[in-house]
């Protein structure tokens, strides 16, 4: 079953969710490129980690559930995994950044 043979009431919300997810991904990466500081840059990819992933996974869930004729809860796995792991990565990166900045300051002016 290809993407052409979906009924219209399911195709339109899935298409809207896909477009919204793509636009959010571009916005978050533009923020990652443009923001001036590391701690400000840390905020940008969280947009695509939560809302962008949620939109694309919702579109995928809707598409496969309608085309298979039954509820396919597999995409919830990825959603849960991303929601669990993204804060852990951000927290470790903040700790690493603070540690490295402090050590660079100590190296620059000893004593």
């Amino acid at each position, binding site marked *: 079953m*290809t993407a052409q043979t979906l009924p219209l009431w399911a195709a339109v919300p*899935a298409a809207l969710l896909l477009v919204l997810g793509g636009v959010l*991904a571009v916005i978050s990466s533009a923020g*990652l490129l443009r923001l001036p500081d590391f701690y400000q*840059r840390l905020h*940008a990819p969280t947009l695509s980690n939560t809302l962008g992933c949620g939109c*694309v996974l919702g579109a995928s869930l809707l598409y496969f559930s309608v085309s298979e004729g039954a509820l396919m809860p597999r995409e919830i796995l990825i959603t849960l995994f*991303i929601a669990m792991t993204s804060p852990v990565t951000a927290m470790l990166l903040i700790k690493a950044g603070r540690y490295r900045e402090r050590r660079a300051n100590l190296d620059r002016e000893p004593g």
Partner: protein
Amino acid sequence: MNQILPWAANFAALCVILAMALAAVRMMRGPSAQDRILALDAFYINGMLLVLILGVRFGSAVYFEIALLLALFGFVGSIAMAKFLLRGEVIEP
């Protein structure tokens, strides 16, 4: 029948590829190492989104497993590199 979903999937794939390119620019330009790790993490997430969008576009359920593995490996790689920046070694004795 209706062409709206393939076009939306094409648009979303192009958007995600553009986002991957922007993250790659930040990864090459990034002033510090933690910037590069953050950009690599965003790159992995965008790649996972691209695989999911291709799965919707071609209507195949095989892409889902690839996306799950990509999310897992991206998380493990980012954690390992952040830990390396923090301690100087990945697995502490």
